[in-house]
Each structure stands twice: as structure tokens, then as C-alpha cells.
């Protein structure tokens, strides 16, 4: 299958020509397959947010190109605009962009800007609200009257309502408690399952990435340094550590056990897998309960 989104030697330098020049991306070749669930991790300042904003044309590359469905997204103004509707981008802390009088109207902002009619907008708003678990009652509230986690879900619904073919989320769980995080990850998975759109999830949390996505891209210093399945990435613990990224805690424990001479596979990154492997090794009952 040909990729839905692709970048070629993408380079971006902020504040070009001032004393504050800062190279954020250096020759990034990156692609997203249709319908895949892709995770991106990287240390603070590695260029993740900058890359994401290139994917829907919010930032123009200093050098290189971005292709959506094979066309350069900066080919013309119309192309850029239509790509914005098809590549939905949820920023970090999206709850700070809410502005309408009611949650309903805020979610409707995107679909309305796409020029859809009232009935279609209504369908999409309700569908998106259902995906993130907002009740009809909450739709009529002011967005500022919601709790932090609810605000965040309302903001995410605002992008989901545009029914993008690629949904990009920049650290959607930053600053939430474990339950809020699980809820949002659940919403994202539901969106992926029900619409079949590609989802790109940017995160700092290895556990979250390991548990959620099928392919992982690791960024460091404005470049892509690793690309592969969660298993193959987390098996390279030492390299990740050198980039300031921590391997999931369970994986670390398994590694320690391995150095102690206990023979376990080195590609374990969830508690369930670890339990299974240890039980298998112990030759006991594999039905972990």
C-alpha cells in the first residue's frame, strides 16, 4: 500500500536569519500508512511537535516536501486547506483552545469551517461526542464548566468531528491522572477502530506507546533514529537510554532478571506479557489470575 502521508528530507529551522536560529528537523524521511496506529517518542526538544505541524501544512518546510496521497501539500492554497481537513491535528494541551459558548458549538467549529450543512454537522458532533464519552447534557454546558479531563476530550472531539483520514495527537495525555490517561487512550483506540483512519500518537510515555500502537518511530535531535515494531524498539534498551528515553519499567525488570541468569525473552513491555512469560518459564499454570 502506498503511504497516505510522506515527508522527503524534511528540514526546518526556526527563526532563520536571526541570532535565535534553531534547527528543529534535519532531513526527516517519514511516512504514515493508511489506517495504521503509529507512535512517536522522543526526548523534549527532539522535534516531534515541529514534525506534526508540517504534516497538515501549518508550518512550511525550510527544505524538503510533505506529500498527502501523493500530492505536495503546498502545491496550492486550496490543496493546503483541503489537507487541513483530512489531516486532523490535536495540539498539546488542546483544552486551551476552547472558546465557544457551549461544548456543542465548539465541536461544531471544525465541521462548519469545512462548509458542511447543519444536519451533517449535527451528526458529526454527536458521533464525535459519543466517541469521547461526552453526554448530551454536557454538550449544552459551557466548555469552561467542564473538568480538565472533560475539556481535553471535548477539544479532541472537535478534531475528530472533522472525520480526518489521519488523526495526529500531540501528547494527548500530558498532565492527566492515570484514569484520565486511560480514558483518552481508550477514546483514541475507539476512533481508530470505528473510522479506520490512521492515527499518529506522540507521547513521552513508553508504557503508553507500547500498549497502544503497532509501529514506533523514535526521534532524537531532529532526526528519526529508530523505526519498527514496539518489540524491536524496546529490545534496544541501551541505545534508548543513551537518548534520554526510559524503557518501560517492566522491561527494565525483565532485563535485570536476564542479567541474573533467568532466561526470559527480552521483548517484554507490558505487565501481562511479563506475567505470562514468567509463568511459562516456571512451567506453572499459564492462566494468570
Amino acid at each position, binding site marked *: 500500500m502506498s503511504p497516505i502521508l510522506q515527508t522527503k528530507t524534511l528540514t526546518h529551522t526556526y527563526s532563520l536569519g536571526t541570532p535565535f536560529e534553531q534547527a528543529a528537523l534535519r532531513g526527516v524521511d517519514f511516512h504514515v500508512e493508511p489506517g495504521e496506529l503509529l507512535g512517536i517518542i522522543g526526548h523534549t526538544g527532539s522535534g516531534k511537535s515541529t514534525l506534526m505541524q508540517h504534516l497538515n501544512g501549518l508550518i512550511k518546510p525550510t527544505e524538503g516536501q510533505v506529500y498527502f496521497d501523493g500530492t505536495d501539500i503546498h502545491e496550492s492554497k486550496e490543496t493546503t486547506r483541503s489537507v487541513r481537513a483530512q489531516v486532523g491535528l490535536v495540539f498539546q494541551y488542546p483544552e486551551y483552545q476552547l*472558546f465557544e459558548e457551549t461544548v456543542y458549538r465548539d465541536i461544531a467549529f471544525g465541521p462548519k*469551517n469545512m462548509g458542511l450543512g447543519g444536519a451533517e454537522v449535527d451528526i458529526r458532533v454527536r458521533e464525535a461526542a459519543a466517541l469521547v464519552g461526552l453526554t448530551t447534557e454536557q454538550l449544552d454546558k459551557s466548555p469552561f464548566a467542564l473538568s480538565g479531563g472533560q475539556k481535553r476530550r471535548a477539544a479532541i472531539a472537535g478534531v475528530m468531528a472533522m472525520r480526518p483520514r489521519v488523526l495526529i495527537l500531540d501528547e494527548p495525555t500530558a498532565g492527566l491522572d492515570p484514569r484520565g490517561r486511560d480514558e483518552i487512550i481508550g477514546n483514541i483506540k475507539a476512533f481508530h477502530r470505528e473510522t479506520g483512519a490512521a492515527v499518529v500518537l506522540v507521547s513521552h510515555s513508553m508504557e503508553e506507546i507500547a500498549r497502544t500502537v503497532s509501529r514506533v518511530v523514535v526521534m532524537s535531535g531532529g532526526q528519526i533514529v529508530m523505526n519498527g515494531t514496539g518489540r524491536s524498539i524496546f529490545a534496544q534498551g541501551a541505545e534508548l537510554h543513551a537518548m534520554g528515553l526510559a524503557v518501560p519499567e517492566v522491561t527494565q525488570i525483565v532485563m535485570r532478571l536476564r542479567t541474573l541468569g533467568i532466561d526470559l525473552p527480552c521483548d517484554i513491555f507490558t505487565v501481562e506479557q511479563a506475567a505470562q512469560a514468567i509463568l511459562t518459564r516456571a512451567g506453572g499454570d499459564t492462566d494468570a489470575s
Partner: protein
Amino acid sequence: MLRDITLGQYFPGDTVIHRLDPRTKLIMVMVYLVALFSAGTALTLGMMAVFLGTIICVSKTKLCLLVRGLRPLAIILVFTGTLNIFLTPGEPIFRVWILTATYEGLRHALVLLARIGMMVMGTFILTYTTSPMNLTDGLEMLLGPLKRIRVPVHELAMIMNMALRFVPTLLAEADKIMSAQKARGADFESGNILRRGQAMIPLLIPLFMSAFRRADELAIAMESRCYHGGEGRTRMRQLRLGLRDALAGLVGALLLTAIIGLGVLGL
């Protein structure tokens, strides 16, 4: 686009201009402005330009930054320039419809452009080479005597300091909110004035919310450090005048005398 506004931005450096005492710099700017508005002839304006050029070179300020700072003023400059050319009575050059361009008008316009341009550049160099902290410290000390007549100088300086400090922060914030709304299909660039005004709502409401939130947080942070205004406050960094400040003062005095002297002589 919003980042083009460079007002109140400081570019760290280590030149003589950067190291001058902020009080000296503030006084020098005032002297410079007085001289600039006393200069009305090609000779005196030329001298001012040479002076400005020297300062730009010595402070290693990038010319493109100064030009960029002038850009928002371009419309006003063109507008007042044109008005001057056509509305000053005198010897005609050419006529457009009922308007007559005059030599006197042209002269006026050029002098005006030179003055405003140099004024803006001069003050920009001040903010480019002086950290906001230093600038307000200097201002506070210069205005110190007003405390006698109950002007809350320290509080005013603090307010100014914070305002300057938050200009870049809020601009960055505005940029981010704008991007986020654009990602939802908002259009800030087309349509007539009314539509554009409406299009600003999704930007302005979150921006105000964020400004209030930041103000709240800052107030709490200051209170929890027991800040209670200027009374009895001492400084961590004391400002001291040195030899360079004396020399700068001398240069300023010479410049002002020369310009006013030449003006009196009618040159």
C-alpha cells in the same frame, strides 16, 4: 507572522553598548531624540544618520532586525509622507487631479521620514541591547526622585517590567492558538473586515483566558514569596556608573551641542 513584531525584545550580546549602564542608555536615547528633532537640514540629519550608523555597528545589531521592526510602521510613514507632499503650500512639481505636489512638501516629507525612521531605530537599539530587567531598573532609579511626591515609581517599573516580559510569551501563545484553530479550518486571512473581525474570536477568547490565568499564577507566585511592593526592598545587582558611561555622556553632549549649534547658525 506574529513573531515579526520585535517590540521589547532583547538580544543578548557583549558589546560596549550592551554593557553601558541602563541609566546612561536611557538618557542617551533622550538626548538622541532631542537632537533628532532639532535637526532639520541635510547636514544635521546626515550627522544623526552617521551617529546612528556608528551605534548600529558598535552594538552589532543586525540591520534586517531594525528594518523588520519598522515594517508595521510602513503604512503610517507612507500615509503621512504623502499627505505632506501634497498638502504643504509652495512651488509646484506636478498635479494629480486637484492635488499639487510641492518642493516644500517633498522636503517636509523626507525630513519627517528620516526623523521617524531614525527615532524608531534608535529606540529599538535600546530594547535590543538592554535586558528588560536592566531597563526597568534604570528607569526606576532615574524616576526615583518622584517618589517624594508619592508617585509609585517602583510599582510602575514592576508593571512595565512584567508587561515587557510577557510580550514575547503572549505572542508565542497567540501563534500557538492560531495554529490550533487553523488546524480546525479557521481562516484568519481572507474575507472583509467584518468577517476577519469575527474570525478573531476563536483566537482572542483563548488568548484572554490564558493571559488571566498567567496573571493569576504570577500573583500567587509573587505573594508566596512575600512580595509587597517597593518599600524597604534592596537590590541584588547594584548599578554602577563607570568610565564608559562618562565617555558616552560626553559623546551625547557633543552631539547635542553640535546639532543645536548648527541649527542656530541655520545650517
